[in-house]
């Protein structure tokens, strides 16, 4: 368990394959290990939520949405610092996410520096 905690895994949940690839590539370039999941369900099923130090998730996905995933994790007492990246972001949704413990709520296309800062902040917390 101790070693796994040190790994500080970043999980990416996005239904868009291109987006997953881009995020994984970015994290790899800065030396952060990551795992990508095509849906919230897949992530929950993987059992890796407990080793995840930071979650980057899309809000709108077929099946369970990003916000529902967050609620589910909260219900499981698995509070993972979460960064939402979405194209549809509106203020109401943003507030809802932040209130539920999200670290940041970013709109696509996003600034990679800002994203990385947020990820690092989450990992350090």
């Amino acid at each position: 368990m101790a070693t796994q905690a040190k790994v500080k895994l970043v999980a990416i949940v996005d239904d868009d394959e291109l987006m997953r690839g881009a995020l994984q590539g970015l994290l790899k370039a800065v030396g952060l290990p990551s795992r990508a999941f095509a849906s919230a369900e897949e992530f929950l099923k993987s059992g890796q939520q407990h080793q995840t130090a930071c979650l980057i998730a899309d809000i709108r996905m077929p099946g369970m949405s990003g916000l529902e995933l967050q609620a589910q994790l909260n219900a499981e007492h698995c509070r993972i610092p979460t960064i939402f990246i979405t194209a549809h972001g509106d203020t109401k949704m943003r507030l809802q996410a932040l209130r539920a413990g999200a670290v940041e709520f970013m709109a696509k296309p996003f600034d990679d520096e800002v994203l990385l800062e947020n990820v690092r902040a989450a990992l350090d917390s």
Partner: protein
Amino acid sequence: MTHMVTGKWTARPVASAALRYGLAFASVVVALGLARIFLYFHLPQPFAAFALSAIAITFWYGGTKPGIVAAVLASIVRYFDWSEVGAVSRVLYDLVFVIFALLMIGVNRARSELEVRVAQRTAELTRANEDLSLEIAERKRAEEKLRQSEAYLAEAQKLTHTGSWVWEVAGRCALHLSEEWYRIYGFDPEEGMPAWDKRLQRIHPDDRAKWQQAIDQAISEKSDYEVEFRLLLPDGKVRHLHTVGHPVLDASGNLVQFVGSSTDITERKQAEEALRQAQSDLAHVSRVTTMGELTASLAHEVNQPIAAAITDANTCLRWLNRDHPDVEEAREAASRMVKDATRAAEIVSRTRLLFKKGTPQWELVDINEIIREMVALMRSEVTRYSISVRTELAEDIPQLTGDRVQLQQVLMNLMINAIDAMKDGDGTRELAVKSQRAENEQLMVSISDTGVGLPPQQADQIFNAFFTTKPHGTGMGLRISRSIIESHGGRLWAADNSPRGASFHLTLPVEAEAHE
């Protein structure tokens, strides 16, 4: 009959009995008088000759009975006046009178028979004459009727723009061309029937082969033919013609002629063209309206790969900007970038195609490919409302002839309707798109949702123009979708989906047809 005819038609004047019998007396008296005069001048005694003349005249003009009376009178006169002749002479005289009278009776009978026959013949001739004049009148009436009917026919031909014709197969020459035919083909009837090659020249060069083929086939099969083609007149005008021909065979079954008609359908063609254009314009407007509803989703759909591209570009720079640039990683990031940009371009081009206005393009299309494209285009829209999409596409479906953009429009309409039906509801939200082979060389596409279902009691009205259940709907989507599918020779209908929601099914013929 004969009596009547005789009475009416006899040449002999019908004098009264008194006159006829009077003639007997008068003629004998005249004969006696003449004989006396001869006697007075001592001329030879010619009473017998005068008496015979008197008897003959009486028989001829007075009839048989007065003739006999005249013969008897002549005998009596002879007896009293010329008693001096000998006994033998007397007997001879009387015998001559009797024989003469008998002869005259025979002559009279022959004459009256002849008269009867003449009368009969005359009657027959008169009857024939009467019949003839009746026939002539009848013929005149018939001719008048025929002329009238021809005038009506010509008028009808003019009104329907239909010319009639007959042509001989062997000589390839026209035997009959109606007035309207001349008008349609632009020939002058005054110049006589145009030669075959002159007629051929009037056919549009692009349609000559088609026309020739139809006729060649009809000749070889001795069958009816029907062909639509265009004329190109010397003044540059184009006419659309619809021609039907019927073979005429002789007693031994040889093909001799073709009879038929040619109808000028230019106006109808133009109207059809205008209608097609109007339908196409309407479909375009409806498409643009629908696309308008999708703007947010489409923007997101384009935004997604662009965001990925920007991230990949930044990542690429990071690998290159290191003290020891990692070219391999940079290359990978760059190739991801290519994919991202390609996807963005694809979405834009698909969208642009739907916005494009133009006449329908008929080509071979793969319905599964169209379904996949539209599902991809709707991805953001369905995600937005947390709807899952299930596609079941049969792989063995043959291609069909159709207009890609219009078929995309139908699928888009049906999918948007399905999404609209589900977005405010609870429970599972599933949009299922299925393609399969159907009977009679058809394929079937079904789009099912788990939404609110068809409006109760109004299920049959949803295809009517301006029927809508949406606050900002135009009520044209389903109407246009149905007309698009019908113009492809297919059917579009709706049914309830089990356990909830609605299903829309459409069939399309696989064979290239329906569109003209």
